[in-house]
């Protein structure tokens, strides 16, 4: 039997990995932290919820729809707001505030939608619903234990192949690294950015539709998660997609595991602070190594350690030979 702790950690970690990848995609392209990203997650959550409650279809089948919805909304936000403002010369802070504005707009939109669900379909828990009990079971474990990490792995692999093996993907990497030079080379930078935002929104809602099976849902799912998703992206390093996946895994897993460790050591009152652990991680990351894990000089740390281990091994084998009377 798998411990619930491991279960929780795996699912949580995978979901965060997925979300962080999308967030980093939006940051890489526009260099603006997207505070409305959590709302894309909520879109996915509500898609699953609506499809399940109204049409009685398993949420897993709604994932493509959620992906598409989130992707389209994300592109609309990029084109209609961020790109429009950037072209008018808005400052970075102004763009950040515009993403906050979109987040607020979504509060209204989700409020309206949940009210509509209640009044039109008689769904009473539309504003705050317990997780959907529609997950399948395999070897006694919930389906999400398999689907979440597999999705993350698929997405990361697909991204890797896309970014390295396809022309459009390489063009996207070029557009992110040096837009002016990419334009000079004839790459349609705007098209790659639009596609990046398409993917980002899609990843967020996919994670959101999964989360409806695992976490409580409601109008504030996304805005509650946004800071933790930022923590994951920042930990990995906002400049790296794989860092984001990695950061998401760490943040998701550590939230569960650290809380549990804290409860064991200090008592159950720690459980209230569960959401605080990713935030603490983010604060520490920003203060100590703001560029994230990918920026840490691993070679610089690992090489001396490897050398030391090597030295130790040599000394030990010398002593060993001496003792054997060689």
């Amino acid at each position: 039997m798998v411990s619930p702790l491991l279960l929780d950690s795996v699912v949580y970690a995978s979901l965060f990995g997925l979300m962080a990848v999308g967030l980093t995609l939006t940051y890489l392209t526009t260099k603006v932290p997207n505070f409305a990203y959590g709302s894309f997650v909520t879109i996915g959550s509500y898609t699953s919820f609506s499809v399940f409650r109204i049409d009685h279809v398993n949420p897993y089948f709604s994932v493509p729809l959620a992906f598409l919805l989130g992707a389209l909304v994300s592109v609309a936000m990029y084109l209609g707001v961020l790109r429009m403002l950037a072209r008018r010369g808005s400052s970075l802070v102004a763009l950040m505030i515009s993403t906050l504005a979109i987040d607020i707009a979504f509060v209204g939109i989700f409020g309206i939608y949940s009210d509509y669900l209640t009044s039109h379909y008689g769904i009473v828990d539309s504003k705050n619903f317990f997780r959907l009990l529609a997950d399948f079971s395999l070897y006694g474990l919930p389906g999400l234990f398999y689907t979440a990490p597999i999705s993350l792995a698929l997405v990361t692999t697909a991204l890797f192949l896309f970014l390295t093996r396809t022309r459009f993907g390489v063009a996207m990497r070029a557009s992110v690294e040096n837009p002016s030079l990419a334009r000079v080379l004839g790459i349609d930078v705007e098209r790659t950015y639009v596609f990046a935002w398409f993917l980002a929104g899609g990843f967020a809602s996919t994670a959101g539709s999964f989360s409806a099976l695992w976490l409580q849902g409601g109008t504030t799912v996304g805005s509650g998660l946004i800071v933790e998703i930022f923590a994951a992206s920042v930990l990995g390093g906002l400049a790296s997609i794989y860092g984001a996946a990695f950061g998401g895994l760490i943040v998701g897993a550590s939230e569960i595991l650290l809380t549990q460790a804290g409860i064991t050591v200090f008592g159950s009152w720690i459980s209230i602070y569960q959401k605080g652990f990713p935030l603490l991680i983010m604060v520490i990351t920003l203060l100590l190594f703001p560029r994230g894990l990918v920026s840490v000089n691993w070679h610089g740390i690992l090489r001396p350690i490897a050398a030391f281990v090597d030295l130790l091994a040599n000394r030990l084998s010398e002593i060993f030979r001496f003792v054997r009377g060689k």
Partner: protein
Amino acid sequence: MTAYALYLVVSLSLNLEAGFAGVPNFGKVMFVAAGAAVAGSVSGRLAALILSVNTHGDYNGFIAQIITQLDSSLSGNAVLSIEILLLGILLAAAIGATLGFLTSYPAIRLREDYLGMLLLAAAQLFQIFLGGYEPLIGGTQGIEVPDLFAWAGNGIEVRDVVVLGFLALFAGLVYFYAERIARSPLGRTLRAVRDNEVAARALGKDDVAIRRNVIIVASAISAMAGALLTFYVGAVNAEAWTRITWTFWIWVMVIIGGAANNAGVALGAFSFTFLFKVVDQVKFYFQGSIPFDVNWLEYLMFASLLILILAFRPGGILPEKSSVTLPWRSVAQIMQPKSRIVANPTQQSSTPEPGKSDQTDKLGSPQTT
């Protein structure tokens, strides 16, 4: 009206930080909530100590009866009430300043986008702490606060007028202070640091200290506002201090009104509270025919308004004014006597600027695509 006064104070403080000094504070709610928490937890305990009210060793647990006793004692004692009020405000300011000081360390060293994320996270962390650490303000349930205006008579009207007068006085003082700073050399220094810190540093201005001090002062002011709101409402509750209300709406007021322009911010805060009231009144007319709560439209309305302003009038309704300079006649007089040409080259460079309003927004340098 009370809401306007308090929103005005907090948005003026944000204007100081972000509008004039260029420090984007996305965690404003943390400072306001800290002031509220201080007011809530300390003032009642202090009053209980002074008036020898028995707290049975568990202030939060016996809060209801403690407050009732305190209220009746305080209603006859105006001097003590005002003393505790002022002390609560000062303590809130001190805690706010300390928090500001702690925040200034990363604020100075991080770039705007990282700083925005950090402050957002810190504010959320603080809210978790406020809600989780029960001994402070009773966690998510919240605690009551002694009515420090009970001496103003039992009639609702008299007390309300007194409270309003107090808040208006406070708001007026803050506005006066903010305007004095804006029109002073310090104000120009702030703007210089905001616009080009390297140049400011080259001219001998310690931009690190300046930004740190601005954050400390602005945080203290916000904390005072939080304390006052707590005293006005009579209770403090961790859940009431939401990111939307006290970070986002404040930014909306500052941007719509006009960043780096105190009159603009006052106008922005006024329009905001006014529009809210208007929607509140008007919604009854068509609430029946819509399948959702009309209040949600307010969020959409303000979000679109903010984006429209950012797109078409980024300086806000009342954009930042150019610095106050010497009148042309004085400059001509200074320039005139030939023997004094070498005396003060800096004075010659202060040419009167045209009073045109700037269309670029003053929150930072415009982004180049």
